[in-house]
């Protein structure tokens, strides 16, 4: 039996690696994804482009502008002279926000009259917009605080004679500490997820196509007249791609560590073990796809149907917590969700079996079930 399995594995590997173009396709997509996610995908908002509309033109308004620019988060890219130009800057996405300092700004502040600074934010991208609003609010609040002591001192001195100025003004200061990713690099969050993503995409597709191709070309009949038994066929068809998947994992992990310097705090052995468990689900899914499609085109379409939702609803790019509750329930059915949690836990948090056992158990149950069901279905589809 092992002899026959070995023969099939060899045949599959030869078929998969025969063409140079095929070889690149096996290893190029993982690399491209890694580079794009490592370098390009960045949700951090800095250097917000703002249009500065100063209708006051006083030292104080210039000071406000300096504190916007000095915060390191804002770049003034335009100075619209009127309403129309300001609107145009937002329309053309030249600026992400317009800050408008009203006339009499300085006079009002000096007279102790409350005044406002208007900030118009382009809300097209709601995520960026809420960050920009927060930053702008903070800059204005700090500026406001810095001009307040002047007036307070005046008032404290005048209203409570005898007391020393500025005492008895308590303050609460937030001290924030960010764990696991103190510099808040998006890269540290995304790159580990790519590991999961790549195994899934590569192995589901390759397994499904390896079988459907034989059906389509008619070589499946030839295989069936040989003494190869279904279980041997299944093993022979899936094991080579398991190997390809593991090689991809090793490749991606080393690039993540060496080039992107993503922290790896957990146990490599645990990651490797979980990758194998996860592979059972993806190979099972591949087998399953092959049983429900007759042509390669159908298999590819179906594959797209499976892998894209698995990717989108895995928490890889979009937090599951933000999804509607019904869809959150749906994600419990997604094996990739568990693996992403495992990968991130192992990479960033250094989590071990004690923390990750529910995810590992879910994956294992899932893997065995899918693999069994698909193998049974596949068995039937051979008869």
């Amino acid at each position, binding site marked *: 039996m092992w002899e026959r399995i070995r023969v099939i594995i060899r045949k599959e590997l030869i078929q998969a690696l025969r063409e140079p173009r095929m070889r690149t*396709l096996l290893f190029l997509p993982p690399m491209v994804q890694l580079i794009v996610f490592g370098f390009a995908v*960045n949700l951090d908002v800095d250097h917000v482009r703002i249009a500065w509309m100063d209708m006051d033109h006083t030292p104080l308004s210039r000071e406000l502008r300096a504190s916007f620019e000095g915060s390191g988060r804002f770049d003034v890219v335009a100075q619209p002279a009127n309403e129309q130009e300001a609107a145009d800057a937002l329309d053309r996405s030249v600026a992400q926000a317009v800050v408008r300092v009203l006339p009499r700004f300085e006079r009002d*502040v000096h007279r102790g009259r409350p005044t406002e600074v208007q*900030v118009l934010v382009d*809300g097209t991208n709601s995520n960026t917009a809420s*960050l920009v609003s927060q930053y702008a609010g903070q800059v204005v609040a700090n500026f406001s605080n810095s001009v307040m002591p002047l007036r307070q001192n005046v008032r404290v001195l005048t209203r409570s004679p005898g007391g020393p100025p500025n005492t008895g003004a308590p303050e*609460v200061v937030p001290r*924030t500490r960010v764990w696991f990713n103190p510099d808040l690099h998006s890269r540290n969050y995304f790159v580990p997820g790519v590991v999961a993503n790549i195994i899934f995409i590569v192995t589901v597709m390759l397994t499904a196509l390896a079988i459907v191709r034989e059906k389509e070309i008619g070589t499946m009949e030839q295989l069936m007249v040989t003494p190869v038994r279904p279980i041997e066929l299944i093993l022979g068809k899936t094991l080579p791609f398991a190997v390809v998947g593991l090689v991809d994992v090793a490749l991606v992990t080393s690039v993540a560590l060496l080039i992107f310097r993503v922290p790896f705090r957990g146990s490599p052995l645990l990651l490797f073990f979980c990758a194998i468990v996860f592979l059972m689900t993806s190979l099972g899914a591949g087998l399953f796809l092959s049983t429900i499609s007759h042509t390669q085109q159908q298999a590819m379409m179906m594959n797209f149907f499976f892998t894209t939702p698995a990717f989108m609803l895995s928490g890889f790019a979009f937090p599951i917590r933000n999804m*509607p509750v019904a869809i959150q329930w749906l994600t419990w059915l997604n094996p990739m969700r568990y693996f992403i949690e495992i990968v991130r836990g192992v990479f960033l948090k250094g989590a071990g079996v004690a923390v990750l056992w529910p995810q590992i158990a879910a994956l294992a149950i899932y893997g065995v079930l899918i693999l069994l069901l698909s193998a049974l279905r596949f068995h039937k589809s051979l008869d």
Partner: protein
Amino acid sequence: MSPRRLRAIFIKELHHITRDGRSLAMALLMPVMMLLLYGYALSLDVDHVPTLIYDQDQTSASRDLIRQFTGSRFFDVQGYVDNYRAIERAIDRNRIIMAVVIPRDYSRHLDLGERANVQILIDGSDSNTASIVQGYAETVVRGYSIQLRSDILNRRGGERLTPPIDARLRVWYNSSLESKNYVVPGLIAVILQIIAALLTSLTIAREWEMGTMEQLLSTPLRPVEIVLGKMMAYFVVGLADAAVALAVGLLVFQVPFRGSPTLMVVSVCLFLFGSLFWGIFVSASARTQLQAYQMGVLSSFLPAFLLSGFVYSIDTMPRVIQVITRIVPARYIVTIMKGVFLKGVGWRVLWLELIFLILYAAIVFLLATRKMKQKLA
């Protein structure tokens, strides 16, 4: 080029499409399903942040501060703990994202009129969520601090003290900051790109694999006619997909549509031309359907999803990659979609994007025809 031959290949390809019912159904249903699923699911907005509180001080002052967090809809206080271990465990298990720790000497410092610290611990693994959470939390504490200060000064001074300068924030185009309003228009563009690539990437590779290409070769058909005829057939499907996707966006998601419908139709058509020609080009370059599919998906789905500005803004990418995004057609259609849907801008603002789409379609058409010629020769 003969219109008759063009029509013949167009009809042949239409037969191909309609004959395989399962694939056709998928091609038509997939966009709707993707839009419905992802339109609701994909969101980067942060609220109801699961939070733990560790109050070492246990005084009315510390409870007053805690009320600022429990009263905010951004935070969802899950409970109170009395040691750091519990916080660590909860963060490790992804149960909470943030913890507020009020130190033992908090109220004492306040009573003395000194500076009191509040510790905020955040799980940084999701950097985007973390930085938003950090902003919210610090705003809450700072705001509370100012209020506390002015309360005490007021008690002493008698007159109300208000912060002299107030930021008046106004959000344009998407004033409720709903993420569906920005996800859905971009998503429509991304879905069209994927469908176009999926539909066409196999069309020529399949003929090679099945051996029907030889039959086509023996006819007087010319490469231009094959490319155009095939494109036209899939254009019909693509247009149907676009119509359905737009309808779902407008009717189901109620995304505001503020711009010109004509501009929308013209740019969708231009974009479809470009993407379909690209699929045909890929298909003509590949030897097998598997390769064609892989190349098609890799060259359309990934760039459309990641480099188009659909969710990940291009501004924050490194220079080199920003330059690369200039050759991604999805980037232009995403800009147009968002512009027409949300901003209501017209030709005056978007003409450059349109020209890029035209150029792209023209160049890829030439490439595809040349590739076909090479293959047929």
